């Protein structure tokens, strides 16, 4: 078994699927919180959807957010994890949303429901590690 290795930002980008499920972590007043959400990668940012009244919807915009995507292989005790961190902003511009939709970049909401708040996280750091490389 090899030791964990840090990934370069380029390797991180290669590993993270263009869309899928990741976890957004925020610092809430009462402590950190983690929410699984669908995302899409758009250039050097992650876009995800939430509802306006959720903790994520009310706290993420304008705040530092860490977004984690991973793939863990239990049987082989290996996998990778990538974290994009930076300031998140709500996407208020309908044209920007239309452009995302036109490019097929609108993230689906796995949990359905009214998730009309779109958050864009432009990462200032992209880090990751891989475990159990053969």
């Amino acid at each position: 078994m090899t030791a964990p290795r840090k990934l370069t930002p380029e390797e991180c980008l290669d590993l993270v699927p263009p869309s899928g499920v990741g976890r957004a972590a925020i610092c809430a007043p009462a402590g950190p919180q983690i929410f699984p959400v669908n995302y899409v990668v758009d250039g050097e940012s992650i876009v995800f959807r939430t509802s306006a009244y959720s903790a994520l919807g009310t706290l993420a915009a304008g705040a530092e957010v860490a977004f984690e995507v991973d793939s863990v292989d239990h049987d082989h005790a290996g996998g990778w994890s990538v974290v994009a961190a930076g300031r998140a902003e709500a996407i208020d511009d309908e044209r920007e949303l239309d452009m995302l939709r036109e490019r097929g970049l609108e993230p689906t909401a796995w949990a359905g429901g009214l998730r009309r708040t779109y958050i864009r996280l432009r990462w200032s750091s992209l880090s990751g590690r891989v475990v159990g490389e053969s």
Partner: protein
Amino acid sequence: MAAIRELTPAECADRLRRTEVGRIGVSTADGPVIIPVNYTMDGECVVFRTSAYAELAAHAGDRVAFEIDEIESDLHRGWSVLVVGTAELIDDVDDVVESGLAQALRSWAPGVRNLFIKITPRRVTGRDVRP
């Protein structure tokens, strides 16, 4: 339209017992940090192993979040459980080893991981989504 249901405390506890990998979130001056960890349950507490130098070890005593999930995005179904609590260093490592917890903590990332951290939950919530 998806059906979203809050999980009962018993359902949350059951899922916490059945899962091996979760994600720890801590608040730092530079923003939140999130790290996947192998874990096991000691009663109601989440226990995981980390190295003395890992970022996580610096946050013993802090309020932390711990999340597990299983999501089939394409099928619009899945569940997640969020534990919010206080992280503490377990001082008596011998006790951990004797109780068998150390063996249960097959660490996802190998290396020197001789610090044990226990999260005592203050709040456990979960939800289940079905199409």
